[in-house]
């Protein structure tokens, strides 16, 4: 949003080129949630594949609707300090005219922002896969998208106290990355660890899905970061290019750390590195030079890597390490801006290194307030939900697997021993099919 300030003067009209890019960017970000589903599904055991993927699909359904009904309005209507108004509720006044000072139709702006809400909700699911019941997750997704995402989106993007104060967040270090990461931690604590956590080896059942999913995420991230300039202007172009450079550096650094740790470069590690690099550059994309973006790619690797190695040694089963990959990298990116933002490149503000200490102050504020709000709000939300409805499956269900118990399906069904229950009205006397055990 802030990237608009400089051009606020300019009379806003829809530009076909900017709109063309934003339509592409929006589709790319929506596709990211599919990629995330695949990434997550590959990381769990095969008996929980579908449930894990379905949490992302569920987010697309639930958050897609809440966003249109009120979420968007709460995030982007007006400049209230803590939350927006209801002026855009039920898509009121969301039409073809450009939004604010952008050069794209309001509808496109709305859709683009909606895809952010969706993927953020999906990200949180990584903390509770393999044990949280599907129904309660859907309810959680709906409430969280309003109580946490929309609020933080308002703070960081939509005219809330952080952005108004001067915090720079290009593509969602606040509302997407730190919000999902620290909410994931809270969710993991409330829902509790999987029954076999720490006692058995729970391994990714399909690393190819993990790599392909990470690849789709990187692909989509060009829309995520590159689109956050809301057009083809300098900010978007800079963020786009940095989205190629930063993850490359993170990958290389991760390779080195893997070699030092286990003398082997791991594939799951590489997939993680891609995500970490993309997250790191998310807040900073349009504000720092390509050179600093590469440095960021290197630096962001260390804390994330450390947490990923350390977390499983704790009792906290934050299963897919959303905190490490998103919360931490997002926080690093937010702070990095405070040091290395460069007005020469972003036309808005310098960081400490370039003589503007205030920037670092505001970045630090964001890095403190966001995690606090996300963690507390999510913790309370799930605790309250837990009073009304059981959040997790029974031990027995967990043992059998969530796919069968939550969805009544197997990811990889062979059909052997499956007996048709639906009888064919049409066929006279269909020969009965095997029914062993039906005593």
């Amino acid at each position, binding site marked *: 949003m802030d990237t608009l300030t400089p051009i606020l003067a300019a009379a806003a009209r829809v530009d076909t080129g900017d709109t063309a890019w934003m339509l592409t960017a929006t589709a790319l970000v929506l596709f990211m949630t599919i990629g995330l589903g695949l990434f997550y599904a590959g990381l769990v055991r095969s008996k929980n594949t579908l449930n894990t993927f379905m949490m992302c699909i569920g987010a697309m359904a639930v958050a897609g609707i809440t966003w249109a009904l009120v979420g968007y309005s709460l995030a982007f209507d007006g400049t209230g300090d803590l939350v927006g108004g209801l002026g855009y509720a039920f898509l009121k006044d969301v039409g073809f005219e450009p939004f604010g000072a952008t050069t794209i139709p309001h509808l496109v702006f709305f859709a683009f922002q909606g895809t952010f809400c969706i993927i953020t909700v999906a990200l949180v699911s990584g903390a509770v896969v393999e044990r949280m019941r599907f129904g309660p997750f859907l309810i959680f997704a709906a409430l969280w998208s309003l109580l946490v995402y929309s609020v933080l989106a308002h703070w960081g993007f939509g005219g809330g106290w952080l952005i108004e104060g001067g915090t720079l967040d290009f593509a969602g270090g606040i509302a997407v990355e730190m919000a999902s990461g620290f909410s994931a931690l809270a969710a993991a604590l409330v829902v509790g660890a999987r029954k076999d956590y720490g006692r058995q080896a729970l391994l990714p059942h399909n690393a190819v899905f993990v790599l392909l999913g990470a690849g789709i995420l990187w692909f989509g991230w060009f829309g995520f970061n590159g689109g956050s300039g809301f057009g083809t202007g300098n900010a978007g172009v800079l963020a786009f290019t940095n989205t190629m450079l930063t993850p490359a550096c993170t990958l290389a650094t991760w390779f080195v750390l893997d070699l030092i740790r286990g003398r082997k470069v791991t594939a799951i590690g590489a997939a993680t590195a891609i995500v970490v690099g993309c997250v790191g550059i998310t807040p900073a994309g349009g504000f720092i030079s390509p050179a600093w973006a590469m440095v960021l790619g290197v630096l962001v690797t260390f804390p994330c890597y450390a947490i990923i190695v350390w977390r499983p040694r704790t009792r906290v089963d934050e299963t897919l390490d959303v905190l490490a990959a998103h919360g931490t990298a997002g926080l690093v990116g937010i702070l990095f801006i405070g040091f290395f933002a460069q007005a020469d490149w972003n036309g808005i503000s310098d960081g400490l290194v370039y003589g503007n200490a205030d920037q670092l102050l505001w970045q630090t504020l964001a890095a403190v307030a966001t995690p606090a709000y996300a963690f507390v709000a999510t913790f309370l939300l799930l605790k309250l939900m837990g009073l009304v409805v059981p959040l997790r499956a029974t031990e027995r269900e967990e043992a059998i697997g969530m796919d069968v118990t939550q969805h009544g399906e197997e990811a990889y069904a062979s059909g*052997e*021993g*499956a*007996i048709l229950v639906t009888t064919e009205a049409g066929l006279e006397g269909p020969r*009965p*099919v*095997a*029914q*062993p*055990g*039906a*005593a």
Partner: protein
Amino acid sequence: MKLVIGIVRPEKANDVLEALYRAEVRGVSMSRVQGHGGELDRVETYRGTTVKMGLADKVRFEVAVSDEFVDATIEALCEGARTGEVGDGKIFVVPLERAVRIRTGETDKSAVTPVVK
């Protein structure tokens, strides 16, 4: 008691299960195997590589039964699995000295007759 091993075509697996069920045989374990016998090899081509596939997919049934059930089991396997074409498979009968139901520790005969719900 005997351990009856039947190797059949995958597409006949459900028919075999049904036949076993009809024969009052309740407990059974099955697994996928690949077999070679009298069947013609398939030719497959992957880019420049042409291969003869000497193995055909089969399903292997393992059924522990008390002696009086052996013939019924064999008949059921034959009935369910036969197509008359080469590749129908084989049945092997192996002596079974002991059987234990893990849940209860019951042994032998009682172990191979599942609880009726």
